[in-house]
């Protein structure tokens, strides 16, 4: 390895506060333009309204930026926080961090939820959240050392560029013989050269003796990190026990934590087996229900899907404990050992690959017409080490491939690359080009929204057609589920605050398979409750998987099986046991509502956050092309006749597409009306005065924004 140098630019010594009921009660602020390090207090008001995690991030970011701030302006902040329960080893899934910033893809707030040890180590080192602003001309490494009570900024030179080797190097550098005490946040060259850069957060795998990583993938956060000149942020902390959070009621915490842990251990082997196969079970299931995106979301099924499903990955994953936080009994973060890439800088070398998960398999596999696990694993490896989001890479490449197949672009635009669906070497080459900032890969790396502009402006491609098939909304690429047959999930994507990511609401099965929400009111209720409850995990430092990916055996006999209320009640007990603040299941929803509405208003501040911004491309709603319609003629014909009372006799496919589109687009608009009403928003999708008052977010700046957008205050 090349020799590297790290010279200290500033050292900040501090007295580490005692953690009280899950809070350090201060945040760390670093302006890397002039290497200034400072500490801000966390007020009771912050805790009451914003809870922690994403809530704290949003508040810090709101105060850092103004309404004209762009992603690459120095005042844009990268905020990272865990939450009051973050770092609890006794409760499954309690080590998450949330990262927020102004996104290069959307121009508004992005948030991304990630595992690894960083968030808890940051808090135990004395800081509920980290806020980094400014820009450095030199590459810097930030080191937060909770053991020796100092924060340091180093000027770094000669360090590896890619995250895989960089994480390992910095883990060893700072470990003082105890690598488990270290967590590294870094990105790679892809983040510098595209708009879809991710961050890698490490956790140390004691058995395999290596730094592993999880990704804060969405929205190009890695690009902001790289643009600021940050090479890495490293946290160092010591042993973690249930006491480290100094919970208000340790006995109740242990009790409820053990109950949930035990249930996961007992039931996961009988249910989804995530401790063995992660989320790969979703591949064949989605395929069976016509929900696995293939060929840029044209179809939901493919005869070769089993080649990239759980039966294959069960054999490929390296067996062993794979918890991205200590004590997580669901332990779903699997990896592939001794993988040998066929291309790129690691060609022929043995590497460890973290993943793939369902999203990567669908994004970099089926959606590109690729059904070969080796290619998917190689794309997974290079996306991570180059610091690229596998979802945006997959969805953007799928769009480019469809444009190529349709002749909207050709080899003169792709620099001779044959971008037909299924071309594995081309897909890998795109990723390498993204990392190098070269060729057509560099264009794909700008994301679907920018590609639509470039293809139409420079290559004469039809903008309306691209609007229909380009799978982005709010500027963010869709994650990997088909939504054509689930109106509720169209809302789950289209009404999501940051753009079409499924972490707010995944309602496809409840809506399409179980028919739990047949009316608009029921869909609206689901599009209120689920996003609110899922938001709550991000406020507290938690992973949502143990909530509903393992389900109590008697759950189906409860009133609302989709909500898994037994677990929701455990979470309320868990919150109270750590923070000492009494709450109930309804109380959790109320906590999220304040932060959720605040984020909607933040979008408004940045020039978005209104009805028109919740539009989605027609590909997400129904069939765009005749081949799509004709691949499922029976289904669509039946709907026209039975649901919409259309006489289809003698009608061409093109005519039927137009009719179906009219109906479906109207339904989507009707859904918006119902959801806005349920959420306490105006018909233009803006929270009302009553809503912000009820939630305690009626700050003067908020009211002023509402007034400026015609909302009566």
């Amino acid at each position, binding site marked *: 390895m090349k020799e590297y140098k790290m010279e200290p630019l500033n050292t900040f010594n501090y007295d580490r506060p005692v953690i009280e009921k899950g809070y350090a009660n201060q945040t760390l602020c670093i302006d890397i333009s002039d290497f200034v390090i400072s500490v801000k207090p966390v007020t009771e008001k912050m805790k009451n309204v914003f809870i922690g995690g994403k809530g704290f991030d949003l508040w810090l970011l709101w105060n850092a930026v103004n309404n004209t701030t762009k992603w690459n302006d120095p005042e844009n902040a990268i905020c990272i926080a865990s939450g009051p329960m973050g770092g609890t080893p006794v409760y499954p899934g309690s080590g998450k961090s949330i990262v927020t910033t102004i996104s290069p893809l959307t121009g508004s707030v992005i948030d991304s939820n990630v595992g690894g040890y960083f968030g808890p180590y940051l808090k135990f080192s004395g800081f509920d959240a980290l806020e980094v602003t400014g820009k450095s001309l030199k590459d810097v490494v930030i080191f937060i050392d909770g053991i020796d009570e100092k924060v340091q900024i180093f000027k770094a030179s000669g360090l590896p560029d890619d995250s895989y080797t960089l994480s390992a190097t910095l883990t060893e550098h700072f470990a003082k013989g105890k690598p488990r005490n270290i967590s590294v946040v870094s990105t790679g060259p892809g983040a510098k050269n595209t708009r879809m850069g991710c961050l890698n957060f490490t956790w140390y795998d004691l058995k395999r003796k290596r730094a592993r990583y999880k990704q804060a993938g969405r929205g190009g956060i890695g690009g902001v990190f790289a643009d600021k000149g940050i090479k890495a942020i490293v946290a160092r902390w010591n042993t973690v026990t249930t006491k480290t959070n100094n919970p208000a009621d340790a006995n109740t915490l242990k009790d409820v934590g053990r109950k949930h842990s035990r249930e996961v251990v007992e039931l996961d082997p009988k249910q989804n*087996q995530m401790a063995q196969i992660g989320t790969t079970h979703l591949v*064949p299931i989605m395929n069976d*229900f016509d929900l696995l995106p293939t060929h840029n979301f044209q179809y939901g099924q493919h005869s070769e899907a089993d080649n990239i499903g759980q*039966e294959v990955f069960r054999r490929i994953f390296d067996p062993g404990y794979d918890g991205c936080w200590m004590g997580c009994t669901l332990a779903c973060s699997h990896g592939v050992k001794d993988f040998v890439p066929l291309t790129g800088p690691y060609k022929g070398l043995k590497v460890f690959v973290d993943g793939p998960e369902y999203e990567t398999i669908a994004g970099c596999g089926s959606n590109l017409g690729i059904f070969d696990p080796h290619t998917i694993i190689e794309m997974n490896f290079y996306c991570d080490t180059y610091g690229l989001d596998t979802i945006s890479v997959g969805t953007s490449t799928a769009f480019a491939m469809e444009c190529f197949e349709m002749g909207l672009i050709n080899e003169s635009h792709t620099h001779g690359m044959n971008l037909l669906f299924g071309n594995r070497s081309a897909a890998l080459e795109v990723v390498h080009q993204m990392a190098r900032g070269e060729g057509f890969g560099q264009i794909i790396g700008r994301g679907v929204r920018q590609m639509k502009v470039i293809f139409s402006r420079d290559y004469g491609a039809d903008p309306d057609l691209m609007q229909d098939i380009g799978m982005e909304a709010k500027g963010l690429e869709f994650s990997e589920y088909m939504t054509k047959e689930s109106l509720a999930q169209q809302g789950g994507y289209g009404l999501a605050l940051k753009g079409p990511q499924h972490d707010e609401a995944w309602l496809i099965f409840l809506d399409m398979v179980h028919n739990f929400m047949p009316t608009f009111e029921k869909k609206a209720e689901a599009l209120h409750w689920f996003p609110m409850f899922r938001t709550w995990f991000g406020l507290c430092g938690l992973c949502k998987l143990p909530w509903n990916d393992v389900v109590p055996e008697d759950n189906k006999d409860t009133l609302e099986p989709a909500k898994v209320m037994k677990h929701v009640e455990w979470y309320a007990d868990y919150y109270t046991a750590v923070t000492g603040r009494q709450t109930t299941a309804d109380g959790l929803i109320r906590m999220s509502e304040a932060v959720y509405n605040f984020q909607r208003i933040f979008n408004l501040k940045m020039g978005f956050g209104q009805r028109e911004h919740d539009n989605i491309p027609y590909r997400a709603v129904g069939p765009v092309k005749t081949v799509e319609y004709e691949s499922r003629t029976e289904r669509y014909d039946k709907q026209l006749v039975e649901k919409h009372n259309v006489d289809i006799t003698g009608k061409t496919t093109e005519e039927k597409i137009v009719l179906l589109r009219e109906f479906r687009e109207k339904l989507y608009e009707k859904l918006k009306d119902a959801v806005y009403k349920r959420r306490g928003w105006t018909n233009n999708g803006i929270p009302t005065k009553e809503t912000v008052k009820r939630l305690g977010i009626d700050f003067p700046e908020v009211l002023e924004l509402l007034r400026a957008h015609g909302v009566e205050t």
Partner: protein
Amino acid sequence: MIKVNGEKHSWYQGMTIKDLLNNFNKSHLYAVVRINDKHISMPYFEKTLIPDNSEVFLIPMIAGG
């Protein structure tokens, strides 16, 4: 004889997943069933035969990503 969610359950030649689910209440809530390590989804319940001595797991809910 087969096992369903760890409990012994009678079996007969030609038994499909649909047949098995008829023995359980609220069986419409099961959209996926696992036979040993293989997931079978609702569209295939009617035509999938359960082999003797299988371990069958009724997957309660698919929760997605």
